[in-house]
């Protein structure tokens, strides 16, 4: 006999799946065209190549501190693929995959991690908010943004990204509460990759799932296999439809894993075992999708080889473009503090420009 508590929590412990570990369908497949399925796979391969290349660039000293997402590609693509241009995303520092899927050029991402504020400048019409490094804060921004859509009578949806560690922050709970009370078209997307830098999930919470927190806020909460891009897409499709039609917010927890370090400043061997890493790599989201496409007759080995080569070329071209840009205009640090430069910033800007002229060639250049 299940206890009342077990009955209540059961829906939040169930993990939604579409593909088994070998790529065989185990659940209802989402309604997608063959072209869409191939495009989703292409995105994941491109993101993996991008991510590994940026890791290397960081180790070569050509990039600042970098937060890799390899292993989480299904979450990155599955969460952003179905969004429309009018929709918004509010990402963390490990969501530049989703940012690119939603329209941010790859060069922006590279420039951001090189240390150029212009990297955060999304093109006009691309509703990708700059990366939030402060944990979970962006969830309240996403909720406010979605709330504004509702107040204005528009149907744009906002997605706030956060990790498992971020669910311990007050902002996570305030965002869920505001989203619930005002029934706003927001999706709170938790990529539960099991570690907040080194601290494992069981030190973040005693709850059995993150999804179950939705119960407390009386909003839908779902748990999904984060290594299964079609499952992530499916739960997002439901959440987006619900939000757009006035049904309010959804909390989504995706079970995933980052293969690499938290950032390039940390060594995951100190807190995770090689066996655990290999277990997750055996369920790789890209390989799983490849097998699915091949089994459906939508993909060949030759196409695969071409795709990986294409991705390497794309990334190489973007890196070359980013590196050719050099350092941003030094005086630009004063711009955009305010809409108009107040007198004290005008003075400070002139002073820096005079100093640069005086010390021409002497001020150290990097980047």
């Amino acid at each position, binding site marked *: 006999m299940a206890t009342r508590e077990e009955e209540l929590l059961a829906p939040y412990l169930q993990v939604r799946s579409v593909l088994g570990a070998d790529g065989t369908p185990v659940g209802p497949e989402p309604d997608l065209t063959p072209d869409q399925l191939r495009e989703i796979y292409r995105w994941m391969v491109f993101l993996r190549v991008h991510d590994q290349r940026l890791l290397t660039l960081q180790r070569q000293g050509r990039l600042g501190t970098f937060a890799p997402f390899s292993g989480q590609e299904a979450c990155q693509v599955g969460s952003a693929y179905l969004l429309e241009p009018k929709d918004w995303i509010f990402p963390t520092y490990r969501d530049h995959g989703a940012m690119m899927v939603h329209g941010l050029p790859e060069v922006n991402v590279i420039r951001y991690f090189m240390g150029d504020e212009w990297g955060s400048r999304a093109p006009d019409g691309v509703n990708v908010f700059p990366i939030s490094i402060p944990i979970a804060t962006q969830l309240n*921004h996403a909720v406010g943004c*979605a709330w504004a859509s509702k107040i204005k009578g528009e149907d744009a949806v906002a997605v706030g990204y956060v990790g498992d560690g971020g669910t311990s922050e007050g902002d996570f709970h305030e965002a869920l509460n505001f989203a619930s009370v005002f029934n706003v078209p927001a999706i709170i997307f938790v990529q539960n990759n099991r570690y907040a830098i080194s601290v494992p999930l069981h030190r973040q919470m005693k709850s059995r799932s993150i999804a179950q927190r939705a119960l407390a806020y009386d909003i839908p909460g779902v748990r999904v296999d984060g290594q299964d891009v079609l499952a992530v897409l499916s739960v997002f499709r439901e959440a987006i439809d619900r939000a757009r039609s006035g049904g309010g917010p959804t909390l989504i927890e995706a079970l995933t894993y980052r293969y690499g370090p938290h950032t390039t400043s940390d060594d995951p061997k100190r807190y995770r075992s090689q066996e655990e890493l290999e277990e997750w790599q055996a369920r790789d989201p890209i390989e799983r999708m490849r097998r699915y496409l091949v089994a459906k007759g939508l993909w060949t080995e030759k196409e695969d080889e071409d795709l990986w080569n294409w991705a390497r070329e794309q990334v190489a071209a973007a890196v070359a473009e980013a590196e050719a840009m050099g350092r941003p205009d030094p005086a630009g640090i004063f*711009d955009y503090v305010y809409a108009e430069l107040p007198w004290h910033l005008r003075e400070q800007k002139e002073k820096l420009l005079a100093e640069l002229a005086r010390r021409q060639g002497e001020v150290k250049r990097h980047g």
Partner: protein
Amino acid sequence: MARMTMVQAINDALRVAMRRDPRVVVMGEDVGVNGGVFRATDGLYKEFGPDRVIDTPLAEAGIIGTAIGMAVNGLRPVAEIQFDGFLAPAHEHVVNHLARIRWRSRGRFTAPVVIRIPSFGGIRALEHHSESIEAWYMNNPGLKIVVPSTAYDAKGLLLAAIEDPDPVLFLEPKRLYRAFREEVPEDYYTVPIGKARVAREGRDVSLFTYGAMVHVALEAAEKAAQEGIDVEVIDLRSLMPLDVEAIVASVQKTGRVVVLNEAPRTAGAAAEIIALINDKALLYLEAPVVRVTGFDVPMPYLLNEDLYLPDAERVLEAIREVRSY
């Protein structure tokens, strides 16, 4: 024209702004049905409804965080934080996001949020209800900081703040809310942010201050006049940006300066104004600048509040000191 208290002028400014611009929404704790704990939003809920005058959950980080998201998506939120000390839970949103969204997105996103906060001491309130928080944010680029001292300025500055493309901290001296009634135009007008006001002209000593302390300064100036000292009182009105021209012009005129703020002494607004005088007008000085401030202690509870707050007597002492140097 109508005779209004400062809190009525603020209420009137909000109503005028909401009638002029459908993007303006008011949000905060108790601002809706109850009209705000000081009644600053009285009647707005009835006129504009629950989508534009929003009673929020009791969560300051959530209020400012969601206001940022609203502003980024095209609204003009005016968020009320019920008391000065309660901005602390939202501090992260103010410094890490609100103040730098324009900068870090290179102008792609902006968050023109106004945060209205009943501020400072003098009403014998509970702990954490009487804080001077302006210096926390003067050292944080990207915000504008405004403190009115009259009903006329409160309305005009608030309307300017709501229209301003940058986020504005609007610190309302709560002890002035009902301290006087003044003629205030009922229609729309603005008072520019970044411009000081000469509250009293004088030749001998310049007294720079803002907010409720303007009235303490004026009282001290009247007493000084009886001793033959002609004090010029400059109401700064805006702490970010400061009106450097008005400050320098007055220093050049008098050569003797008192700076007055209610906040604790160390690294307060007064310290910045003195540094500015040092940068821009040192050679006009005929005496060292004296500052009158609160003490470097937590705001005392109500029985000792009066010991903490600078009063006219304390300011007069400083005026005498710079005059006789």
